[in-house]
Each structure stands twice: as structure tokens, then as C-alpha cells.
């Protein structure tokens, strides 16, 4: 029964995200990220922007080196499951009540070394996913990209080789 309890704690009981179509983050990781964002982002966060955080983070992580993405996987696992080892809380991070979840993350933020890095890593992902969104900018007075004046005439088109063209220096193609 103890094994089953641990198995449940470790693997089951995650809220599934409808239609999750991430390429880097799993549905579970997206769920964990949402739960952390809930605790770390402003209480009055725009709901639409808030729900987009895992989508935006997934998009940002695409194409990053494999070694970096391995670290991201470890980060999610460690944040989610270190509640017991580090702070004697039974429940996983995403299962904690909101206030307790924030308290756990705040405790992590005050620790040094790897534990502090766990907090910083997951926090940075939340901030990255939230503050890149245009709907958030009015609250900070940020006016965003400069729309006008007109852009100069495009002068770089001639540089690109036509599709199918091969370098003149190519002496053997396989």
C-alpha cells in the first residue's frame, strides 16, 4: 500500500490540460508550470495571459540544446518532488494548497546553491512566459515595438541563393 501511495504521489493525480500540444514540455510539466505560475505570478494576473504561460514557455524552449533541455526536465522533477525531502511536506508542489505552494517556493528562494537555483529556474520560466505577452504590457506602461515610421526598402533579397542552387565551391555532392 505504501508503494501504491508513493506511485500515486509520483505519477498520478495530475490535472490534464485539455488539448496540450507542447513539443518540449509534457502535459504533466505544463500542469506543474501552471501551478507554479499560479503561486509566483501576480495575484491579479490576466487569466488569459496566465493560461498561456506553458504554451509560451514550450515555444521558447524549442530548439535549445539537448543538454539544456535535460536540465529543464530535472528542474521540473526536482521542484515538483522536492517538497518532502527539502521541506517535509508530503504533497507534491502542484498538489499543495496555493498558500502553502507559495510558501514552499519562497523557502526555496531563500536557500543557497542548487536549491536556490531550482527556485530561480522555475521562476524565470514563469516570468518569461508571462511578460512576453502583449496583453500584460499595459499594466507596466510598456508601449511595445515601434510600429512606424515606414521600414526602409528591403535590400537583402539579392544575397540569398535561389532554391536548389548549390555553392560554386561544391566539387562533390556526396
Amino acid at each position, binding site marked *: 500500500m505504501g508503494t501504491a501511495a508513493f506511485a500515486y504521489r509520483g505519477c498520478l493525480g495530475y490535472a490534464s490540460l485539455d488539448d496540450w500540444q507542447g513539443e518540449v514540455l509534457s502535459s504533466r510539466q505544463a500542469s506543474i508550470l501552471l501551478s507554479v505560475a499560479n503561486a509566483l505570478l501576480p495575484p491579479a494576473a490576466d487569466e488569459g495571459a496566465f493560461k498561456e504561460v506553458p504554451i509560451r514557455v514550450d515555444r*521558447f524552449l524549442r*530548439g535549445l540544446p539537448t543538454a539544456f533541455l535535460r536540465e529543464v526536465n530535472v528542474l521540473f522533477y526536482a521542484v515538483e518532488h522536492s517538497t518532502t525531502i527539502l521541506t517535509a511536506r508530503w504533497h507534491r508542489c502542484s498538489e499543495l494548497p496555493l498558500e502553502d505552494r507559495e510558501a514552499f517556493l519562497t523557502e526555496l528562494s531563500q536557500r543557497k546553491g542548487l536549491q536556490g537555483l531550482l527556485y530561480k529556474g522555475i*521562476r524565470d520560466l514563469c516570468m518569461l512566459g508571462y*511578460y512576453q505577452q502583449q496583453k500584460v504590457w499595459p499594466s507596466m506602461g510598456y508601449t511595445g515595438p515601434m510600429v512606424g515610421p515606414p521600414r*526602409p526598402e528591403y535590400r*537583402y533579397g539579392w544575397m540569398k541563393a535561389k532554391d536548389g542552387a548549390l555553392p560554386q565551391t561544391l566539387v562533390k555532392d556526396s
Partner: protein
Amino acid sequence: MIYDANNFPSGSQLKCDLCVVGSGAGGSAAAMIAAEAGLKVVVLEAGGFVTPEQSTQREEEMFKKLLWQSGTRSTVDKSVKIHQGLGVGGSTLHNINLCKRIPQTILKEWIHNRGMHHLPLKKWQALYTEVEKLLTVTEVPLKQYSRHNQILVDGCKELGWRGGPLQHNRTGCVGSGFCELGCAFDAKNNALKVLVPRILRAKGEIITHAYATKIRKEDGRATSVDVATIDPKSNEKVGSFNVEAKAICVAASATGTPALLLNSDIPDPSDTTGNTLRIHPAVFVSGDFEDKVNAWQGIPQTFECTQWLDFDGHGNSDAHRLWIITAFAHPMGTATMLPGHGAAHAERMKRYAHTAVLTAMLHDETRGTVKPDGDLALKLEYWPNEKDRKELMHGAWACAKLLFAAGAKSVTLPVQPLKTITDVAQAETFKNMELKRGMIDITAVHPMASIPMGDDASEAAVDSRGKHHHLEGLWVADGSLFPTSIGVPPQLSIYAMGLHVGRHMVTSLGAA
């Protein structure tokens, strides 16, 4: 023309006179000289062909296109972030266009300590004059100063601190302020705009998504370059080809170049390759102002404070080594650099439009290391030594003084936990803080000095022509060459190295 490696078959063989690895300031300059001298030149660029038309001025899109690892590159222990450019034009696509010459004091020290027979002072001056003309370097007029830069001007004036205007390589600038995300208005007179057209018109070829993984050698001579074809979406290797060349010039930055040389087992009895990295680490301090600053708008970094930058005292252990300028990040960057979370963090972000940020960049003495990590990655180790850490905190103090002098209501040092002061007297606490890993985000954008040039083959891997001492046909033409940190933005000097090394390669190949 510019070709994409993904469009030709894996296993292809290219043959040329000169293969240049990297299309940034140094690589493009060297390639331009060689191509215009009639040599068949192939330039390999690991990134893509990103033009001003593609600049969306959005962090999450442009970081992916213009920065290695989308701007997440850091030291192994994550304590220092190092931003480096990617794409045809390298870091000149995203830099802030600052143009400064290496101070004479430093050049004289190099000449005294490292031989530098091919780079006497006169040569440096001539190269700088040439580069400044090439890039149309001019001072930014006072009337074009943003409110953000005016704050630094005001602070210097109030304190009686030394400062002055900065020169930039921009033409037709509309003051968007989005330089670090690529100029959508094509105002940067950078490698892409100025040098690449000349390379191509002289029949040089540039190949994108081409990551050089190894330099092949035979009988004491560099013979060819193995290249991985990189898929632009996954950034994974999807193919390979080889470029055979009479000479190979590596200009892949002060991190990429030593990594490639080490990965290729290029002999170096001096053991300096990758072991003497400097980065100009910087700390940031923000001030909150009653009126709006809108620091993301207008030309960034048009004024410098040099009160604490004592090049004449170079070598004197008490000499200060700090260069202070404005610095600002867009929302994503700011939110991640500002510690904390929840309501407190959000309240600070609401003051974004009222925030000014100064940075103190250090002319560092610490030596970091660069090592390859497989074929397609590298490992960076760097943590400022005790003296450099003290100096950085002195820089934080100086930034705080300037912000208060310019009228800031409060000043914040983005440490964990956040430290906000409301009285200039409290800034003394910044000076006395011990800088520890993880306490504050240290950022660097000027890696250099990782293969320090010198004419004594027992002390250097590369001579003052950029020619490798121990492998014929191998050259280096980027910021790796600087024997020490230079204390000023390096782009002008890297362009200069490209021209200089390019000419020596042309002579060596008999094309002069």
C-alpha cells in the same frame, strides 16, 4: 551568394582558397579582404540569414534568431550569463553599435609584453581610422539623447564625475531603442549591411546553419574543416560536409574559436588556448523616478561615465576598472533579472516606465576557461576573483550614487533578497557587500582574450598577424586574440583584427 547548408546533400565536399569560420565582425572583415583580393572564399555561419525585415522587435522571437541558446548561455554553475550573437553578421546584428578604440595604455602594455611586431601603435591607429570610415562612425548628437541617457548625463554633472559622449555606427536611426533585438529599420552599419555585400560581390560564398566541428590537419598543416549541418528548428545536426581549403581562418568568437581548436587537437605548447577568457562582467542597478523615463525608447547608450575607469593607472592595484553606461532590458529580460515574485514583483514591474538602469562593466583580470562539450556545445567557467568582485560592488555603489544624483526616489540592487534604498548614504552598503554566486545576475556580452596573441611561440598559440604558431594554414581573427581585457566595447577592435589578419592571409596565400 548566401546558401543554406540544409539545401545541399550531406557528405558534400567544398573546395576553396580560404575557409572562414564565423561571419561576425572579424570573420566578415577577413573574408571581405580575401574575396576582394581574388581568393575563393567560403564563410561558414552556424546561425541563419536574419535580415532587418525579419526583426519583429519581440524578445521571445529575436533572442531565438540572434543569440546563442536563445540568450540562455551561461557558465556551468549558472552564476554568469554570457550573451553572444548568431547569424550572418554575428554579434553585430544585436549589439548596441558602440565604437571605442582600445586605450593606448593597454596597447602599449601588449606591445611591451607580447612582442606584437605586426601590430605597432601606428598600425592600430590606421586600422581604427579605416574601420571608423568603413562603418561611418559618428557621435550621437545631444538632441537625440533619450531621457534615459540624460539621467546619466545629469548624474555625472551633479557629482562632477568624468563622462562623455559615445560614438556609434548607425545611419538613418529612428530611435526605436530595439537595437538588441536586431534593427528593424536597417540603421546599424554592421557586418551584414557593410561587409557581407562586398564579400558576395567579390564572389565569396556564405553558408548558413553550418557549424564547424573539427579542423582536419595533415603533415603540420590545416587542410579542411568538418561541418555539421544544423536544422534551424531543432538545432540538431542533420547532416555534414567538408570544406577543403589552403587556409582556414577561425573567427567564431572568443568562446567558439578556442572550443573548435581544442576539439581539433590543435597543438599549443603555451597551453593558453581557452584558458585566459575575459568577459567584461557587469552588474546592474535600477533607479525609480517620479517622471516617466520610458528607457526602452530612443538610442541606447549614448553617454559614458569614466570616473572609475583609470586606464593610465593600469597595472596599479588601486586603479579602478569600471565603465558605466545605461542599460535596459525589455519586459521578459527585466522580469527575469528582477528577483522576487508575486505581488511585490508585480508592483515593481508596474514601475517599468519610471525605471532607469545603469550598468557597471568591469575591465576584468579574472581568467575563465572555455572547453568544448562534444562537437556542438561548449563549457564555460568563470567566477570573478576577489579583487574583481570588490570592484564590481564598487561599481554598484557608483551607479547608485549617479541615480540618486540624477533624482531617483529609490535605488534597487537586484540581489536575492532585493535591496532597495531611499537615501544615497545607504549606497555605502553596496560597496561593502560580498558578491556571492547566485546573489545577483552577472551578465557579460564581451567575451575575449581566450587565445591571446603574442610573437613568442612558447607563450602564445597565435602571433600578431593572427597566424597560428604551430599549425600551418591556420589563422584566428576575432576577439580571442586580445592578450587581456580591453575595458571598452570590442566591436571596432574585432573588425580591425579581421582586416589585419585578412591582409596577412592574402599575402601568405600569394594573392596580394
